[in-house]
């Protein structure tokens, strides 16, 4: 059954379909609708879950750390300042190997105050040991949240599903709603192997010394290394039941492309639209949609790196002092594998500024003509003299 809904509503519906047992969240724009919808679903008992209405995002994540330790399925949603307030606990959730699933509705970090979209909030959490997926449609949000529970519970790694504030969270699209019984088949209730149990008392996350801390991190890294296979398999199973699938990197108009732009989130839709238009006028442009920041899909990424193609990355985020984070990640992968590909860096759309078709045209033109700064950031749409 298809229904028109916002991105936030798609996320909430996925939580209901996933039969989450404990939810904890705190209001923050543009995520708030998720907390409201889930409160309604719990209130009407359409969802048999406990919603713990906390006084901060820090407490939301602390609550889920406690709840997930008892073996139940848990969910929260946040944005920007809220995600940053959780920072300490993000490490704790992954270090304690708790499969918490969270939606982060991307919003720029203040100061100055802004409620509008960029991805600096979530990319800044890339070292916290969470998987990160970036969606470009409401359907993908619903599907990704459901799949994330399965992936997180298999790997015992928490999972963040990210989508752009307002551009996606408040935009209405038709979403195909899966049948509950099919979701139940795909995603049975969580079966934790280790959990708080008075019949089998154990101590969790106690003190370690230099002689054993490192092994915990080694094991977390090893779990991340298994993630590509588990993620691929999970979306394969999802595809078998629901007929939809997603890849960690999705190529469009790629095979004979001479200039290729990479992007994630809502800007990816604009790149896709523009690339399709340029193709119609005979330009050999291509597009790679980046869906995953952690684990970074190295293997698939390298399969798209060809010697004579001009590549650009569109970053809707900024790590001041270096540049766009996706670009830095990509350059790191290329360097690690001894690849010579040059990747140009474009920063655009910070704090909710529109990334338009004209901007994408400009980027493709600059890439094709070599009118680019290859050693630094190419700013797109910034005002004033540069």
């Amino acid at each position, binding site marked *: 059954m298809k229904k028109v809904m916002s991105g936030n509503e798609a996320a909430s519906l996925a939580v209901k379909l996933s039969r989450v047992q404990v939810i904890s969240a705190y209001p923050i724009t543009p995520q708030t609708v998720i907390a409201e919808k889930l409160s309604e679903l719990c209130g009407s008992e359409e969802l048999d879950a406990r919603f713990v209405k906390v006084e901060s995002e820090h407490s*939301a994540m602390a609550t889920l750390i406690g709840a997930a330790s008892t073996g139940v399925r848990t969910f929260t949603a946040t944005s920007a300042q809220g995600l940053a307030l959780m920072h*300490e606990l993000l490490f704790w959730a992954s270090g304690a190997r708790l499969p918490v699933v969270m939606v982060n509705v991307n919003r720029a970090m203040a100061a100055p105050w802004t409620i509008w979209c960029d991805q600096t909030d979530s990319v800044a959490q890339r070292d916290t040991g969470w998987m990160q997926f970036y969606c470009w449609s409401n359907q993908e949000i619903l599907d990704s949240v459901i799949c994330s529970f399965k992936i997180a519970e298999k790997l015992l790694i928490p999972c963040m599903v990210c989508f752009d504030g307002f551009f996606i969270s408040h935009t209405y699209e038709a979403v195909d709603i899966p049948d509950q019984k099919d979701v139940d088949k795909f995603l049975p209730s969580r079966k934790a192997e280790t959990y708080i149990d*008075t019949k089998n008392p154990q101590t969790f996350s106690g003190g370690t010394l230099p002689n054993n801390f490192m092994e915990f991190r080694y094991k977390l890294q090893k779990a991340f290394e298994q993630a590509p296979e588990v993620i691929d398999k999970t979306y394969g199973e999802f595809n078998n039941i629901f007929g939809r699938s997603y890849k960690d990197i999705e190529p469009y108009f790629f095979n004979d492309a001479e200039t290729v732009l990479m992007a994630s989130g809502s800007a990816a839709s604009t790149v896709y639209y523009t690339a399709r238009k340029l193709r119609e006028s005979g330009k050999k442009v291509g597009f790679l949609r980046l869906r995953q920041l952690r684990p970074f899909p190295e293997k698939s990424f390298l399969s798209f790196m060809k010697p004579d193609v001009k590549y650009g990355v569109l970053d809707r985020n900024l790590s001041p002092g270096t540049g766009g984070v996706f670009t830095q990640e990509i350059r790191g992968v290329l360097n690690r594998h001894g690849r010579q590909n040059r990747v140009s860096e474009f920063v655009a759309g910070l704090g909710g500024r529109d990334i338009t078709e004209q901007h994408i045209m400009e980027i493709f033109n600059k890439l094709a003509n070599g009118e680019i700064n290859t050693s630094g950031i190419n700013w797109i749409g910034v005002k004033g003299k540069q």
Partner: protein
Amino acid sequence: MNEMPDYEFCASHSFYGHMACPGCGEKILIRHVLEALGPETVIICPAGCAAVTDGVFPHTISPVPFLHVPFDATPSAAAGVRAGLDMSGRKDVTVMAWAGDGATFDIGMGSLSAIAERNENILYVCYDNEAYMNTGIQRSSATPIGSWTTTTPEGRLKSEPKKNIDFIMASHRAPYVATCSPAFIDDLKMKVTKAKNMTGLRFLHLYSPCPPGWKSDPKDSIAISRLAVECNLFPLYEIYNGEKYILNYQSRSLPVSEYIKLQGRFRYLSDRDKEILQSEADQFYRTLISLQNIKPQSNIAGEE
């Protein structure tokens, strides 16, 4: 005082071998608290002495499930454990937060207020040794006026009185707030048992001597605990629903000088601060008596 029970829950579960200092109040307290609560209990414990002295991985002395959590996360994590246990059909398990004064009075205060306002079904226990002892004796808002710590050194002794956490909790209309002392074990066990059988947010404030932090002799921990009660610096009382006050023990109202002379942390205490400490103790005891609105009832035997 009743005789010690034959069966000690903690002792039967390799409780020996903890890493606490000699004379530590916290270990005496948790032994008796767990004795009263029994095995259907989960502990949520933040950074602090209790977390460290439980043992280093893979060792643990806890006879019940023990969840370590970040310093500022105890109340919310306990609420999460409660929610998770309730949702998986384990409503009868007691969820006990076990946190020091730093975690309770200071860094966890916001979320403690929140779980009290929501009246979460949690037993929150604060073992109060009146400073950040695990990091090496720094002042907290539980540190008494005139006390030496490494961050309130000679010449800059703590100039503010201790935060009244119990009245703060009572102001949230918590169903049960009580103070307990390791010198009054029967009273402690009575309160823990009472709290166990109630629902909603129950807050126990436990006086917890710390010989290294207080610069006291380990053998004096119980004597100091008793003097804290007898000098009215730590009266034993209960507050029900934030409105009904019961003073459990009529103290001998000894001068505070009896209390401070056993502790090096008060060695720089000025006469002025001593007077403040004395008048605070007198006034607080009078306040409790007036709040109780009846003559203090001695429902436990004084120790002579």
